[in-house]
């Protein structure tokens, strides 16, 4: 197609340049443009571009590492808190257990003490009653002896006189006794 277009164009009869043979200035300006662009890309654009990509990769990696570290420390803290909680829980339960057993022991001791006290009181009362009874017995025994002797001596003395008198003596004695008692 090109050749036909060119042929058609050539038909106009001008002395046409061959499009495949470059003019010197054409080569010169092409080379100038190429060299300038190559230098520009090589030493200016691409180093900056690569540096930016490297920095970005580094920054993203850094942030990832940061996030990972934060995650790890958070996990550690959580584990620590959980362990602490478990420790506290077991401690509190053991304290409760201890308190309960201690309370029970105190209760038992109190009960035992109270029982001992009661027994002791009972014993004391019993002892004192016993002692009083003994004293009373002793006193009564002595008095009764005397009285019996006295009565006997009176009975013997009065018998001889009359029974009535004797009865009277006994009655008198008893009333006397009663008077003494009172």
């Amino acid at each position, binding site marked *: *197609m*090109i050749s*036909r*277009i*060119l042929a*058609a*164009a*050539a038909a*106009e009869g*001008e002395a*046409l*340049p061959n*499009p*495949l*043979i*470059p*003019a*010197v*200035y*054409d*080569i*010169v*300006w*092409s*080379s100038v*443009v*190429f060299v*300038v*662009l*190559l230098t*520009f*890309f*090589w030493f*200016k*654009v*691409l180093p*900056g*571009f*690569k*540096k*930016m990509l490297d*920095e*970005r990769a580094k*920054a*993203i990696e850094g942030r990832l590492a940061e996030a990972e570290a934060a995650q790890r420390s958070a996990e550690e803290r959580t584990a620590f808190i959980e362990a602490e909680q478990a420790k506290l829980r077991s401690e509190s339960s053991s304290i409760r257990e201890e308190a309960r057993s201690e309370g029970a022991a105190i209760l038992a001791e109190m009960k035992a003490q109270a029982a001992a006290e009661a027994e002791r009181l009972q014993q004391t009362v019993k002892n004192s009653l016993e002692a009083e009874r003994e004293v009373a017995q002793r006193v009564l025994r002595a008095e009764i002896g005397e009285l019996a002797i006295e009565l006997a001596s009176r009975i013997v003395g009065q018998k001889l006189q009359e029974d009535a008198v004797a009865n009277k003596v006994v009655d008198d004695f008893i009333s006397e006794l009663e008077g003494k008692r009172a």
Partner: protein
Amino acid sequence: MKLFSALTLFAAEEGGFHPPSIMEFYPEIVAFEGTPFAINRIMMIRLIVLAVLLVLFYFWTRSFKKAVRTGNVVPGRFQLLGEMALNFVRKSIAHDQLGEKDGERFLPLLTTIFFMVLGMNITGIIPFANIAASSVVGLPMVLAAVAYVTFIYAGMRKHGVKFFSNALFPAGVPKPFYALVTPIEFLSTFILRPVTLALRLLMNMIAGHLLLVLCFSATHFFFFQADGFFKLFGAGTLLFGFAFTVFEILVSVLQAYVFTLLTTVYIQLALADEH
């Protein structure tokens, strides 16, 4: 092509239509005429493209630097665009073909080739430029020469002189066949590669430009010089012009990609241990 013959017929008959000619690519010299630094419209476009590329990538470099300085890892829209452009060559071309190590080694060259070809191609559809700065043979030729020198350098650097014997006498071929294979290998590797690189780009850009000129000058002719019924043809040619403009954007990018990719593949073949 029929359309074109028809148009030349028109031109012959009425004298009002000027078909595009090869002289499109040789505008008059405006400065330094006769010296090696002569400047015409196309050379000027090249220098403007160079300036635009320098400014654009300068700003991108600055935004990269700023990102490094501020430790910002989230690029803005402008910076992201630059990253995508540079990463396209870096990842999709250099790293894919050459691996990371060799890819980084040849990256400056490949990046330069890609953005230079792309920038020079795209002026074909930029208003007021309207011609690809790569549609004159010098630029494709220089770039093809650079690619040629680079892949030979890469091969020599890695394999020494054995690079040439590897390339010309491929392993695993029975000896008598070398009489046949070696000339073919020589032709394809050391002659056709640079020639096809340069011609593919040059011809794509020349053809694209001629097509666009044809469509739009025909539109102009139909609208302003043809009579009555023929004016309607102008709508058709305008539509074609629009379609080819879009197509030329695709071709510009594609040719830049193809040129860079082929250069990379040639380097990769030169570096490969076995041919």
